[in-house]
């Protein structure tokens, strides 16, 4: 334990680092897939055996502004990928693999029935991952309108389901959803 003296300069450097927006590209950052299936990163300065990829605007801009962060409790940002499209195909696939599980949200493609019973609504829907049946709480804000036509539904356990465009549903299905529109 040598560094006992309080170093103001060090602190200021840290703060400055925090304020900087560090854009990552493949020249500066090398992404690889770990043996266990996670994401690792090698930058000019440092090796990160495992990093996290987090969307800054998961709803409005899922493919842009991806924050690459260290893991653990004091997760810190290493840098930002401004646009996934700017990455090579292989790297994009590795990162997208991480993102798809993190933001796992079945997309509702059809509605079989919605029943409103005593403070809960019971949904029976078709999704891109098969038929799902779940219940939501009516009292809270479990049905969120991201836009006029886009809806995110959160069930009792906080599982998420998405309807990207309610206009894609049939009129009969929309009618079932009527209570939440």
């Amino acid at each position, binding site marked *: 334990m040598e560094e006992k003296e309080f170093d103001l300069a060090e*602190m200021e450097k840290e703060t400055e680092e925090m304020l900087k927006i560090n854009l990552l590209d493949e020249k500066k950052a090398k992404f690889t897939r770990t043996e266990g299936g996670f994401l690792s990163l090698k930058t000019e300065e440092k090796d990160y055996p495992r990093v996290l990829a987090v969307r800054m605007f998961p709803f409005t801009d899922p493919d842009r502004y991806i924050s690459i962060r260290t893991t653990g409790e004091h997760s810190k940002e290493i840098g930002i990928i401004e646009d996934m499209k700017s990455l090579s195909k292989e790297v994009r696939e590795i990162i997208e693999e991480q993102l798809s599980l993190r933001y796992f949200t079945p997309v509702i493609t059809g509605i079989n029935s919605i029943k409103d*019973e005593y403070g809960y609504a019971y949904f029976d829907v078709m999704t891109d991952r*098969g038929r799902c049946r779940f219940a939501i709480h*009516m009292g809270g804000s479990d049905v969120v309108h991201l836009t006029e036509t886009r809806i995110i539904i959160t069930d009792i356990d906080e599982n998420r389901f998405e309807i990207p465009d309610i206009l894609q549903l049939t009129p009969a299905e929309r009618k079932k959803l009527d209570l939440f529109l």
Partner: protein
Amino acid sequence: MEDINLVMMKPAEPKKEIRVPQAVKGVLAELGGEKEEILAFSSTDMNEKGEYADGYLVLTEKAMYVLKSEADKNAVHSFKGFLNRKDRDTEKERDWKCTRYPVEEIKKMTVEPQVACGILVVEFSDGIERTVAVFSNLYRKEVHVLARSFANTFEKREESEGEEKGEGKEKKGKERGGRGHGGPEGGNDDDIYCPICGMMYPKPERKICPRCMDRKSIFIRTFGYFKPYACKMVIMMLIYVAVAALNLVWPYLNGTVLYDHILEKNNDFLLSVGIKNGDFILALLLVILTMFAARLTLQILTIIQGVFTAHIVSYVVRDIKKDIFSSMGKLSISFFRNRQTGGLMTRVLRDADRVTGFFIDGFPYIFIHSFSLIATVVMMFSINWKMTLCALVLMPVAFVFMFFMRPKMWTAFGHRHRAERTLNSRVNDNLTGARVVKSFGQEAKEEERFVSVNKRLKDSEMSIVSVSNFLYFTFNFTHSVSSIVIWILGVYMILVNRSMTLGVLITFIGYVDQLNGPMNFASRVFRWWSDSMNAAQRMFEIIDAIPEIREDDEPLGMDKPRGEIELKNVTFGYEINRPVLKDLNLKIPAGSMLGIVGRSGAGKTTLVNLISRMYDPQEGSILIDGVDIKKLSFRDLRRNVAMVSQETYIFMGTVEENIAYANPAATKEEIIRAAKLASAHEFILRMPDGYNTIVGSSGRELSGGERQRISIARAILANPKILILDEATASVDTETERAIQAAINYLIKNRTTISIAHRLSTLRDADFLCVIDNGEITERGTHKELEALHGTYYKLMELQTKALALKE
């Protein structure tokens, strides 16, 4: 290990056998693990590709088994609310692939929550981290229990063994049972499933199945509110019967008696009622008098009934509001954390009125209208059955319409409630944030947002009106058509057939008109019923809600508390898989002052919230004077633990009332003394009305520091044995803080004090301090000891003194 578990576990919790599906047992046997004791078991439902696929995790004393199956696109995936006991118990016919990981090879097991699912990551002894299971939030808790079970049984063992060898510190982490069990709520318990449909309750602690709870029982429960007014209700019923009877007499007097007997000069009729032969003038007078009396009585009865109605309604609405409000008061803080204030206000204020609607405007009239409907129809049949049939033939059509409009109506009311709730929330939001709106000049945008929500409410009201208008129209149309048919038929019978007299026709038409009442009623009663039941359902949802923090059935009192606090292995998180406090151990001797420092979000406030029992820890216990606070009565606990939190709240009322909030019986002198101690006396006197100044939302605005000082005075007057100061002096200037500090020095005598502060100067007088970081106590000791450590505390101290020094 096992023995320790058994001894230390609560006697009320016998060792539970962990039930495992037959298929799992089979797979385990194949791998030679059937003899191993199962420590934890969990289902999983996803794979790494993000598809739904069934799986199991089994943790035994020797290994962890991961069972996986292929994703089946055609399978129905049921989440909580739909998950059926049968589904869980029936064996899933799958092609199970099983991997065995011996526990020696597993270094660490962590549940990593994702946005809407979770993954179980295992770090193996070769240093490689792998995802071994993926699951939706449905099994979040179960997997979490399994991971903890692993940590408690295997990780902790090594740790404490190491400690024993080393410094011989106290063993920790052993009292927790190292076992977890299946079932998303952590149990194979059958009572989390509805006995009727077998589905799991949406909220397992609240044993109500929304699907099996029918609306009739809501109705009966609501009816219970009218019980205390049964006497008045009976009188009202009698009035209704009288009104119906009078209404029945009216067409007869008006038609048959007047036209057919008196105007036709029917002598026999006169004799039958005992009037002298030929005295038609007297008879006419009598009829008019009777008619007049009937009308008058009718009016008087209606007035009496109106008064009674108003009376009963006001009382019942009051009772219901009181019930909802007091139920809300009993609910734990967590209930309010995830609900909008505006929405809850709608429930207290509007729903109570709505509930009574049907019971007053609808329910009593059901009898009365059915009674008059039957009576009228009987009378009509006795006059002329053919014409009666003609009059009634269209009626069923109207009722069929009504039946089909039912779900539409129900939805419409639900819609309106949601719109209303949003509107209330929006107004609430806007008014609370008025300062921000103004300072950024966003009034126009706020108005726009308001207008759109307001329009939604209007639209929903309109849709209710349109549905009920449609019903009203149907009923009226049926009625009008029937009337016209009767007139035509009647006139035909009088003129052509001569089988009917004018008086009889007028009587008959009178009766057809009488049908109008019940018909109109039928068109509206359904609206009332929907509205009322819709609101009642929401009301009972609150009344039935079970608070998460419950008082012990036989609570212990605290007579003369010493104020010693002890935290034993406390683990707590607002969400199960995100612990805010981790395995915390802390002992605060009676009468001492503990200072807590740590960065924001470290869990400081959470810690003191647990001590005042706003939340219960998920694991471990908190003891005051050696008694678990869960066993203490709420009254004694709250009386002896007072908190001045960072969020100060000033209630509507005078300064005096606000200070005496926790102790209304306090004398003026005591209030003044408390205010002086909190350095509030001077600024209170600078206000023109002194201690009588009205403050709070409608009154005089106080500054942040002033509010804090009033809160401190409030806590001082409560005179608790344990005082918690959570950033209590953060908003006051340094000079005032010094003054308060002096007061606190005086205050902490004979009291246990916990003080949280960012400003270290606030903690000058603390007997000892601890640094909380990431839910763990990283440093503890006196000022001197911590300074010598050169750790976080030292860094903070240097920062604060150097930062000050630089400015000079």
